[in-house]
């Protein structure tokens, strides 16, 4: 089985999806001729032609708005927003239009659109190339939100997303694009939307993360294991719909939880997880729920190592939670 990085895995998924379904079209800014600023769509226009993979005007609300219309017109659009930081002009189209279409039409219309976008920081991108704003989308019903942390899941989830009858916001941590590598089959396969994955098994502390933070947590969990603290490490993979069973069954076993996300703490998705655990597993808890998150500032350029949770910060939180 070939080893692929995250970009190659996504590219493989898009190739598979475009081969198996001629309704699939891929578009956005710079995705056609150049193959995307990160090369995720490399070679697609050459292989499938300009009607299947094309550059659009520089306009996020136009990209998502036209994607909705293309889906209504019978295509399966895979739209790219060049950076998650620039998705906000399209927020109205995503939250008010795309996510509501099935509901507001009484189930008569649906728009199976995938919106892909690179997210998160760690590349010294400053405020406008670093944000992780998943929480403004997880509060919107009608759209799935996924953020895979490795190439195998990235390919399988992208194929599931393109085959899904519902819209999917597909978040790609750009720091992992070239750094994450895994064995990935060339042929198409699905990783189900809505299923978390346990990466480490242990009875002392439950560590919950997604995206780049999964890699950070792996290091932290391995470091504390040397001190005898064994953790369940859960990669959520999908944020909505949340795999509640995976979270709650682990917390019931360990009684101790550390939630790690790169987004800011205030009303981040970790708050929802903490509330869920407090509502449904309070009596299992042996320690306060702990969050390790980005600080409540705008993503900085020079000082982003302070902003982003790193393995030592996460390891300390795990140790303190284990000893509480």
């Amino acid at each position, binding site marked *: 089985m070939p080893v692929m990085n995250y970009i190659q895995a996504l590219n493989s998924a898009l190739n598979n999806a475009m081969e198996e379904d001629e309704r699939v*079209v891929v578009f956005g800014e710079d995705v056609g001729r150049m193959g995307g600023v990160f090369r995720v769509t490399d070679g697609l226009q050459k292989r499938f032609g300009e*009607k299947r993979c094309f550059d*659009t*005007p520089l*306009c996020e*609300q*136009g990209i*998502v*708005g*036209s*994607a*909705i*219309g*293309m*889906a*209504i*017109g*019978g*295509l399966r*659009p895979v739209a790219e927003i060049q950076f998650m930081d620039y998705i906000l*002009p399209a927020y*109205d*189209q995503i939250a*008010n*239009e795309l996510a*509501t*279409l*099935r*509901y*507001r*039409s*009484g*189930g*008569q*219309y*649906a728009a199976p659109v995938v919106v892909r976008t690179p997210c998160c920081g760690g590349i010294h991108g400053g405020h406008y190339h670093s944000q992780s704003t998943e929480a403004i989308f997880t509060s919107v*019903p*009608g759209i*799935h939100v996924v953020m895979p942390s490795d190439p195998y899941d990235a390919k399988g989830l992208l194929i599931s997303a393109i085959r*899904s*009858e*519902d819209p999917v916001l597909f978040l790609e941590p750009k720091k992992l694009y070239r750094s994450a590598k895994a064995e990935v089959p060339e042929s198409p396969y699905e990783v189900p939307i*809505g299923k978390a994955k346990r990466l480490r098994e242990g009875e002392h502390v439950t560590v919950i993360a997604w995206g780049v933070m999964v890699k950070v947590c792996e290091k932290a969990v391995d470091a504390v294991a040397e001190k005898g603290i064994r953790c369940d490490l859960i990669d959520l993979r999908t944020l*909505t*719909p*949340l795999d*509640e*069973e995976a979270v709650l069954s682990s917390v019931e076993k360990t009684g101790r939880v550390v939630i790690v996300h790169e987004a800011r703490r205030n009303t981040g998705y970790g708050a929802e997880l903490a509330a869920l655990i407090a509502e449904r597993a309070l009596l299992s808890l042996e320690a306060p729920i702990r969050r390790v998150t980005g600080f409540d500032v705008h993503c900085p350029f020079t000082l982003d190592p302070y902003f982003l949770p790193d393995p030592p910060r996460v390891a300390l939180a795990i140790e303190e939670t284990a000893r509480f």
Partner: protein
Amino acid sequence: MTAVQPLQLLSPEGGASVEPPEGLDPERLLSLYRNMVRLRVFDRRALNLQRQGRINFYAPASGQEAAMIGSAAALEPQDVAYPTYRESGVCLQRGMSLRTMADQLFGNARDLVKGRQMPNHWSSREHNIVSISSCIATQIPQAAGTGMAQRFRGENAATICYFGDGATSEGDFHAGLNFAGVFRANTVFFCQNNQWAITVPVTRQTAAPSIAIKASAYGFEGIRIDGNDLLVVYKTVREALEKARSGGGPTLIEALTYRMGPHSTSDDPRRYRTEQEVETWRRRDPIERLQRYLEARGWIDAEQVERIAAEAKEEVDRAISEAEAVGPPEPETLFEDVYARPTPQLERERRELLDLIRRGVVSRVTHTPIRGS
């Protein structure tokens, strides 16, 4: 810069010498006249229903019947329509029954959108009427996208996108027309410039001499027409749709018309416009104009006029009384259609609501929304 004179076939006086455009024989013209009358009767009844407190909102179409009926009459069944919440006439002309339209006003259990949207938000997949959003202009890039899909797939179909003069100020107007121009989408943009966006006049939306002129910035044709002239509306839209279907790209049509009533049941137009202005437009009434023309050509007589009005009233009354008798949707429908299949979270919430109702903590919704409720 002076305002561009709109294209017109039927003058306000009726112009008996004008031949109807291709596609409109006397029989068809009579059926369009009948729908304009049905629309006005429905419109008045709906406004009254709100004033009587029997529905909670309505946005009237009166004054814009020729623009709505004439444009929708030019559509083929395979063409896709993106209306706004004022396009009752488009729904009617595309074949939606008055009863289905009334069901939506009440938001009852038979409503095609399952009581999920305020009055005026009709949608019917069967009639290629896409779901309406209350947001202004959001449908414009979507209609561009549907026209792009029709072009990519080589379909003999076009998309018509309705919006008002206020919508041309939104970013989505620019986004949609720009995409449609770049990709030569099979989309016809039909702007009903009815002079007012709630209380704000069109002169506050743009300093340009017309809305039609904006099309040139997107690389396609813009046409300004008399929107109260059924013949010119039908002819212009039909030609633009044919051009779109045959790969000729998009067109922007600006139909000059006037909203005779309020924006919605929530405002009083006497507070922002003069009676003199309203009177000027009343003399350009689209239904009277068509009626004078049909009479002058000998295609309708006084008895038919009377019969059409009486039948419309009876039909509308029946549709409304039938719709009013239907109760609200069942509580479990609240959780349908969020996704193709309910998530585990939605299943749990559904059980939670039904349990709360069963225990009497939450009262069952027993009637459809009425004014002030």
